[in-house]
């Protein structure tokens, strides 16, 4: 596991959107941030299956269109959005309401680790080890609202974190999208209220992407990953993690892909390009 780092508003990789806050806090960060504009996909923890499916579809579509997605690693909509992003091999940012090394809820460890495995970043304003206290979550929501260039609320109750995120985003001038739903369904009441108050209705995956591109413009294409190379004289297998800046497990996986692609050859301890 890579070491976490503390970034302050003066640092280069400090998320730009946070500078719109009155008091941008220093952040603990793990993983790599991208410069691609981010879209937050948030919603209630008590989501319906319909909402989860939709959040997953949004996550996938946003990732394919080149957006980074932001969410809070919570149960329900947040997790579905993260998973969708990862499925499409996109970049995700998880903003935690606990210390950066405290995975809450614990069953989301898989999402957490996959994000850190080259799929984005995890950040928090709390020092490592901070427990996930309920009262910290509204403060976390303001970070999500600020990091994102737009906020999509998939399902939300009449009260709750997702509405707070949406309101804060609106105050910061970020466009807010909400998925309309049945007027008598608890998980849709918040979204319908947002639409009444002026949020863009998100009428499906394609509609959302089209609206986003209309409001914010197309995200810049992600630069193709820098080509992984091996010096012609060859290196030992144990050199690879250092050379590529990754874990031994990742280095082995990359090496295997290159072998299958016929780019490198192994002989004894040495790996050399063909």
């Amino acid at each position, binding site marked *: 596991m890579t070491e976490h780092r503390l970034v302050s508003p003066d640092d280069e990789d400090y998320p730009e959107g946070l500078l719109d806050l009155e008091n941008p806090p220093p952040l603990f960060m793990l993983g790599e941030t991208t410069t691609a504009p981010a879209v937050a996909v948030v919603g209630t923890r008590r989501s319906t299956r319909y909402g989860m499916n939709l959040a997953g579809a949004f996550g996938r579509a946003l990732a394919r269109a080149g957006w980074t997605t932001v969410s809070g690693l919570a149960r329900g909509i947040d997790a579905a959005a993260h998973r969708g992003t990862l499925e499409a091999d996109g970049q995700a940012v998880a903003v935690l309401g606990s210390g950066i090394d405290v995975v809450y809820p614990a069953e989301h460890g898989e999402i957490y680790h996959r994000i850190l495995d080259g799929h984005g970043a995890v950040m928090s304003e709390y020092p490592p080890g901070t427990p996930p206290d309920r009262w910290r979550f509204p403060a976390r929501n303001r970070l999500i609202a600020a990091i994102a260039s737009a906020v999509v609320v998939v399902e939300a109750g009449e009260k709750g974190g997702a509405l707070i995120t949406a309101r804060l985003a609106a105050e910061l001038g970020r466009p807010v999208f909400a998925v309309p739903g049945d007027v008598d369904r608890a998980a849709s009441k918040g979204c319908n209220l947002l639409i009444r108050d002026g949020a863009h209705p998100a009428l499906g995956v394609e509609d959302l992407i089209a609206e986003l591109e209309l409001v914010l413009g197309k995200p810049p294409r992600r630069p193709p990953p820098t080509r992984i190379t091996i010096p012609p004289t060859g290196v030992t*297998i144990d050199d690879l993690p250092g050379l590529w800046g990754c874990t*031994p497990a990742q*280095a082995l996986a990359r090496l295997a892909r290159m072998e299958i692609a016929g780019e490198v050859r192994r002989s004894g301890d040495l790996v050399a390009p063909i």
Partner: protein
Amino acid sequence: MYAATTSVALVGGEARPVEVQAHVGRQTEAFKLSGLPDTAVREAKDRVRAAVTSSGIRFPNRTVTVNLAPADLPKGGTDYDLPIALGILAASREIPDLRRAVVVGELALDGAVRAGSNALGAGVLSARHQVPCLVASSAAAEAASIPGATAYGVSSLADAVDLLRDGLEGTEPARPRETVAAEPSPDLADIKGQTMARRALEVAAAGGHHLLLHGPPGAGKTMLARRMIGILPRLEVTEAIETAMLWAAAGRRRGLDTTPPFRSPHHTASKAALVGGGSGNPVPGEASLAHRGVLFLDELAEFPRGHLDTLRQPLEEGVVSVARRGTSVDFPASFQLLAATNPCPCGYHGDGRRPCECRPAIRWRYRSRISGPLLDRFDLIVRVGRVEAGEYSGQAGEASSEVATRVERARVAQLGRGQVNRYLAPGEALLESLAARGLVTAAVGNVLLTARGADRVRRVARTIADLAGVDQVEEEHMAEAIGLRGEWRDD
């Protein structure tokens, strides 16, 4: 006058009751012993007589006949001394009858009771038949730690006689000792560099995969192998008992140690030492002493090929059958095989920094000492490269305890599915994503893997996914598994 008591015989690491029958007749003084005793048991006659006399008890000057039944159970060792002595004393009415007790212990000539190797077996019978057992005081805690056993410790024959005359009811049985404090095994943190080999060790531990490490001398193959125990899950108490019973059958005391056993026989070991057998009563070999643990064969290519091939039965079936005229004894031998070898006689083939001095034919002959069927057993064949002196300065590696936590979690996931991944049949219960399956198919298509190699890689990928804590084997897990294999035959 007749009396009987019960003792223990170990057959294939399993405790069986032996009835010790004693008869004191009217004829002139004599002492007869029957019931297939071995030399040590036959010598019990002299020890028993001396111990009884030294304890100030009269040894009957009549015809004493002792029979150990059933006669077809092989009986060896010195653990029958105490039951024979007490049987005789009961038959001559010196003490009350003790038919409903299991007795085990060796007698010194002065009457002191020493722990033989069967105290655990006495505990097992005590628990199984709900009767008390009488063992040397130094082994009482061990016998008492078998769940359900009632054990009494005695330090001398006189002590035992007093205890039986007073009756067991008034005496407190020995307290169990939960587990033996394990001696600390060497820690992975001692190993600098070798990141890939460490990963291979972790994956092997997690899936219980047989692992072959090959590489130049001084690469640290043996150091790595010796650190396997520190990252393996602890044994269950039932498993610790199984292993300890096999040790007892080999005449060794292990106690209820929940550390998995680690055995590393030298390459000059005989076949019998390796898999069991020997003259007289069959004795378990290293394969069984490593039951539920690790059998480490260092310098694998130096072992005679015939010896290695005898390991194929335990590797396939988890037992060793030792045949004897008219009978055969099965010793459990379910172990994880760990082996290390040089790539060639000089050791430097494939080193990249130092040339190999071996002619190809010599190298080929060296490698062919390890038979194909045995090689096929290793799910992981991993190259361990040499670390240059300068690279030692790198930061210390991760400690064994951290790796052990991940291994434990991966094991729990596997046992939830029913078995450790080592036992997965080709294609069984793998749950692979399409991308993962595509990758391994591509590797076979590129002749990077053989069909058998692909089966092994898929089992290993399953373990890597378990280590990552996910249900489905993803492409990245499969890729890592393909990356982990280090060719042995083709480089």
